[in-house]
């Protein structure tokens, strides 16, 4: 027994930490962990020492002091006397706005291009292949700058709309396309709750009515399904549904006195209506077409992952090609498409930090740009930025994973 290599109780030797396969991996992991911890400790102590040497400290008090600068696109009330924290919140909302818009349009572009790339029409499929290869192989920053530069150079300035010999005119006298942005009529309520211009309650009412209509139409559809299951005859629901959608909302908007604020030239710029700024358009569009090209490839891969037998079986049942796609292929393809789609949504959110290239006031531009610069609190600002992007990315991941779980194959 003395020659056995089995480590019996009490015969543990230090060398076994390296020589024994049962302990080796743990030893190596422990060493790696220690090295990592020491490296972090070194970086931290270095930072602390250098900060001390420079007479600086880490403090977040600057968030409460007035920002002192103005921002061109704010979704909440903000002026130059607001705090740095509020400026950061303005940036957060702008980041979320452009990320949301770009996620929606990128998905639309991506699904269209991905499906059309598989088209039997040679021209259509080659055009889509061209789109995908061009857009995903050029860095998104370059697309942002190109689109913005073209917008500035091609569209007229507000000055071109002025005077009797104006070189530009508004579309239908409602929309103005200028190199500073697009001005569209803005809705407002003349008899709204909370006086003219109204409070946010009016808009909440509109949303409540719309959600109510949504549930009502779903109930109608469920009832129709039940009747169809019981009697084999499906009652007509189209007119009922249209009435449920349109009658309440039109009535509400009439009661509130919906009116449109049409943009008009006033002073240097157009005033009134809603302004969609040039930087937002450039960033939104660039992120959409760039990420759309990636999503197109995901969609194509997802569709091709559905076996051809499924398509053929559906065709044999007499389904038309568009119904084959929407009823048979896409639902199965989604299981393959959604996981990489999550990472594309994360990419959009993170790539939106390139906003500063066109002067869009996202969180990187306000907190990580102007605030950082005017207060000199680089470490604090960058830490907050990292925290923000981390939280947002994890939230998007979590939501999309919930969706993925609801879509994935239910195995019984």
């Amino acid at each position, binding site marked *: 027994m003395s020659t056995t290599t089995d480590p019996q109780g009490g015969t543990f030797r230090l060398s076994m930490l390296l020589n024994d396969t049962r302990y080796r991996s743990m030893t190596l992991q422990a*060493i790696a962990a*220690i*090295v990592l911890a*020491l*490296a972090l*400790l*070194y970086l931290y*102590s*270095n930072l602390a*020492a*250098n900060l001390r*040497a*420079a*007479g*600086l400290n880490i403090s977040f008090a600057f968030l409460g002091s007035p920002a*002192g*600068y*103005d*921002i*061109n696109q704010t979704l909440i009330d903000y*002026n*130059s*006397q607001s705090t740095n924290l509020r400026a950061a919140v303005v940036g957060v909302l702008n980041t979320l706005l452009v990320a949301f818009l770009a996620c929606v349009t990128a998905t639309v572009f991506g699904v269209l291009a991905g499906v059309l790339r598989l088209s039997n029409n040679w021209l259509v499929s080659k055009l889509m292949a061209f789109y995908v290869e061009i857009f995903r192989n050029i860095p998104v920053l370059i697309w942002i700058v190109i689109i913005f*530069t073209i917008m*500035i*150079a091609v569209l*007229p*300035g507000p*000055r071109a709309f002025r005077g009797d010999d104006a070189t530009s005119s508004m579309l239908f006298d409602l929309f103005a396309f200028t*190199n*500073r942005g697009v001005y569209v009529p803005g809705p407002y309520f003349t008899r709204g709750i909370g006086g003219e211009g109204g409070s946010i309650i009016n808009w909440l009412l509109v949303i409540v009515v719309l959600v109510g209509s949504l549930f009502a139409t779903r109930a109608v559809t469920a009832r129709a399904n039940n009747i169809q299951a019981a009697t084999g005859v499906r009652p007509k629901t189209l007119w009922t549904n249209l009435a449920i959608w349109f009658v309440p909302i039109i009535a509400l908007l009439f009661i509130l006195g919906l009116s449109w604020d049409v943009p008009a030239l*006033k*002073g*240097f*710029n157009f*005033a009134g209506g809603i302004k969609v700024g*040039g930087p937002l358009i450039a960033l939104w569009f660039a992120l959409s077409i760039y990420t759309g090209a990636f999503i197109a490839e995901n969609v194509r891969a997802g569709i091709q992952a559905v076996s051809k037998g499924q398509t053929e079986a559906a065709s044999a049942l007499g389904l038309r090609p568009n119904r084959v796609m929407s009823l048979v292929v896409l639902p199965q393809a989604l299981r393959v498409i959604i996981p990489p789609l999550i990472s594309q949504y994360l990419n959009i959110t993170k790539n939106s930090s390139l906003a*500063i*290239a066109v*002067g869009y*006031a996202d969180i990187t*531009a306000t907190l990580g*740009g*102007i605030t*950082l*610069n*005017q*207060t*000199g609190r*680089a470490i604090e600002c960058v830490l907050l930025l990292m925290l923000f992007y981390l939280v947002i990315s994890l939230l998007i991941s979590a939501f999309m994973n919930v969706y993925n779980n609801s879509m994935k194959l239910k195995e019984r």
Partner: protein
Amino acid sequence: MKKSVLFGALTVAGLAAGAAAAGTLDDVKARGKLNCGVTTGLVGFAAPDANGEWKGFDVAVCRAVAAAVLGDPSAVEFVPTTGKTRFTALASGEIDMLARNTTWTFSRDVDLKFEFTGVNYYDGQGFMVPKELGVSSAKDLDGATVCIQTGTTTELNLADFFRANNISYEPVPIETNAEAQQQYLAGACDVYTTDASGLAATRATFENPGEHILLPEIVSKEPLGPLVRHGDNEWADVVRWTLNALITAEELGVSSANVAEMASSTNNPEVARLLGTEGELGSMLGLEADWAKRAIETQGNYGEIFAKNIGEETPIGLSRGLNAQWTDGGLLYSPPFR
């Protein structure tokens, strides 16, 4: 265990390195090159010429310091910085000094821990608009779209000015002067605002400078000057007194043309002290006796530098104004060389 000892040693070494970084003058001498932060390109102040050689008013300050410290005005590594990156570059030690139209303010001096070594240009924030707008005063700019370089004092002054006058505007934040110029000329903004000197320099590069006017309002005080890190007083002294030497040289009539002759034959004791033929001023700074002479010889005195880069004879065409010597009614007043 050995590994942790090794890293412990590294930690100590790192701390030591952090503490030893104070002697910038020795670092520059050892390196044989001065790292000087300048703008990414503002004609007249700092911009590369057709041969890729940096030229300009701020560049001359860098070169004067290099001439004084290293004896060679070309021993300068120019590091282009934007309004946003400049302070990080200086604080991190990437550059030894910053000569980049930087306004001396309380918070930059005290809170950001920098040392302004003087003022080489007394400026103020102005507004440039196309003539065809028919605007004659900045107070008529209600509702205008304003291009502005982000991360600058002008950004804060702009907000203050419009708030004080109770008028509105829409800011367009821009990273560099070149981008601002592009957007302004394309009409994406009605107004471009920055230091008046910068506006003049930018306008000089336009195809039709005559179609743009500078509004009469100067809305802020912008004393621009070179700066260094806090806490290295020897190095701050070198930069400060090099600038003062250029200013004093003009006051005393010493120029690049006559500096050699003055050094050998002057009977003005202050000129002799400045040029190192009398007294020990150079060694007090840790430099050679002829440090100031070398700076003046290669770059000229303050007036020559001004005239050559941004003066009335140049396309930029700035008059001396506040930047005249105190003897001519300006603000330039160097402490005595004694």
